């Protein structure tokens, strides 16, 4: 077995035992990138040289007996909407194609402090708006399980890079499912923490009340180790919560006693592929066989999630993206008539179709005469969605269901139908609206060999419970050990 097929925990013990050095480890992933990246297209930037020098520094410090960080020598890729000082951060947009941030995002500082090796920046839907990574203006990412299919999105590059074993860990952002949906499509573990668990400082803002940074890994334990580094208070993001970060990687192996698993019957109704439904029913039986109690729960307002989400997320995006005016950074048009025309021309040239649509929808939903009908109404239904979860978590520890209604769709299949594309996020969106944590773990394959994801949701700040419940399932199954061959 090659180094690049080991789990994060195996890589950590191999490094500690001296079986291989951080340089050897990093080199083997860079080799995998040079062999397979051309087919996958997961990265927008690969930082090979700096990755090797970070690895060499880790090796030298280990040699001299220094205490190292928890991710010492482990390669990590970052979604390209996370600011890295001195390394381009493009959001996969023409607008920021040449933008080099003057500072690191909080989580980049955390990863550096943990001695992780930063291998590169991954592709995404432009400004994280999309569910297939096809909205990237800078590259096409393919699903390692079937190169004719999308990896999902918006964190498609981060998911594909882990699925193809180009890196053991990666970081994404999730505004309506942008970590969990691509994790499901690519057969890896992806987790959205509770809103406020991870600082958003240096994450390029899309919808500020929904955005959250989270981990991708080949297994639950890897995700736990990475979350442990990402999570924690940061005074530069006042919505990041000041409460202790549990040692997720330690507790993850402990099964939960008396686990109550909630199941929403509506998840298995209209619109779900039968192959997905049967894998998820089988996953629920795994929990039953482990002694968990399976309880029906109702989330009557979740069916409004997609509508609520597109109003709120687009409204917030229209405000956040107002900063791209061609003045301070980003693209400026070369021809214009006056100042206002310069803004409008620069934005027209810099933004792609989907970003323009969302800005337009947001401006419309917030505009005079319509904001009560659209934006305010959406905020009220948002509270009802949250209330449903609060009631459900009085009776269950986690809610289990499909991450997505279908396995990965084909490249080009939904690109002209934004509404159908939005519905790919039907099961993931409510967690962002309610601010609760969610995880997608590999739970099967379709007859065509495409991965299927199980989504588990928990109450706010119950990441520890969520990871332990996910690990209980993973321990009984081998879906996460499968590696795509291409």
């Amino acid at each position, binding site marked *: 077995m090659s180094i690049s097929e080991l789990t994060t925990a195996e890589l950590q013990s191999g490094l500690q035992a001296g079986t291989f050095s951080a340089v050897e480890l990093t080199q083997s992933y860079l080799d995998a990138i040079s062999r397979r990246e051309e087919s996958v297209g997961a990265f927008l930037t690969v930082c090979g040289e700096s990755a090797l020098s970070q690895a060499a520094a880790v090796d030298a410090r280990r040699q001299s007996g220094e205490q190292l960080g928890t991710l010492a020598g482990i390669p990590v890729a970052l979604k390209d909407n996370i600011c890295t000082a001195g390394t381009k951060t493009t959001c996969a947009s023409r607008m920021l194609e040449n933008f*080099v941030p*003057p*500072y690191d995002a909080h989580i980049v500082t955390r990863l550096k402090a943990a001695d992780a090796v930063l291998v590169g920046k991954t592709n995404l839907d432009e400004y994280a708006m999309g569910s297939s990574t096809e909205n990237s203006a800078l590259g096409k990412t393919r699903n390692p399980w079937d190169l004719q299919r999308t990896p999902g999105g918006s964190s498609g590059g981060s998911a594909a890079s882990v699925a193809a074993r180009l890196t053991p860990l990666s970081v994404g952002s999730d505004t309506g499912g942008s970590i969990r949906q691509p994790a499901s499509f690519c057969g890896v573990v992806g987790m959205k923490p509770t*809103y*406020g668990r991870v600082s958003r400082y240096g994450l390029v803002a899309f919808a*500020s*009340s929904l955005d959250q940074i989270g981990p991708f890994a080949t297994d639950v334990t890897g995700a736990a180790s990475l979350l442990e580094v990402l999570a924690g208070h940061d*005074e530069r993001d*006042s*919505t990041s*919560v000041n409460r202790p970060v549990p040692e997720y990687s330690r507790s993850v192996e402990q099964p939960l006693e008396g686990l109550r698993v909630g199941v929403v019957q509506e998840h298995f109704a209209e619109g779900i592929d039968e192959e997905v439904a049967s894998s998820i029913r089988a996953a629920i039986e795994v929990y039953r066989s482990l002694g968990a109690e399976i309880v029906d729960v109702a989330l009557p*307002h979740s069916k*409004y999630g*997609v*509508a609520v989400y*597109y109003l709120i997320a687009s409204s917030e995006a*229209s405000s956040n993206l*107002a900063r791209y*005016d*061609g*003045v*301070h*950074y*980003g*693209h*400026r048009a070369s021809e*214009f008539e*006056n*100042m*206002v025309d*310069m*803004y*409008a021309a620069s*934005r*027209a040239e810099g*933004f792609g179709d989907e970003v*323009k*649509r969302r*800005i*337009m*929808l947001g*401006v*419309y939903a917030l*505009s005079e005469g319509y904001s009560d009908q*659209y934006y305010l*109404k*959406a*905020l*009220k*239904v*948002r*509270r*009802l969605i*949250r209330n449903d979860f609060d009631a459900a978590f009085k009776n269950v520890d986690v809610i289990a269901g499909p991450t997505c209604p279908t396995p990965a769709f084909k490249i080009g299949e939904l690109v002209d139908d*934004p*509404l159908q594309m939005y519905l790919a996020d039907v099961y993931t969106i409510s967690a962002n*609206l*309610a*601010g609760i944590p969610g995880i997608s773990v590999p739970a099967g394959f379709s007859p065509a060999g495409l991965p299927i994801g199980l989504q588990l949701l928990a109450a*706010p700040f119950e990441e520890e419970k969520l990871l332990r419940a996910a690990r209980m399932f993973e321990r009984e199954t081998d879906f996460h050990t499968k590696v795509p061959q291409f």
Partner: protein
Amino acid sequence: MLTREDVEKVAGLARLKLTEEEISEMADKLCQVISYVTVLDEVDVSNVEPMAHVADVANIFREDAVRESLPREAALDNAPKSDGKYFLVPQILENA
């Protein structure tokens, strides 16, 4: 539903210079989404407080103390046009 004129008005507010083709397409695609979100009309939201965010925090203050900030050079580094001291923009006042 959304007319061409509505789209042009919104595009103006959004500072987006759309082509004729984009305006037609935008009207069409936005209409689809807007007609989909009318599903919210069936929800009774009387006596429901709007939820703008889920964070369990109120205003958070810090000391209003002088501290180091981004150096000017770094702040100007990504500017499309700069003279090394300021961001340069086209002339704003006419006949100035």
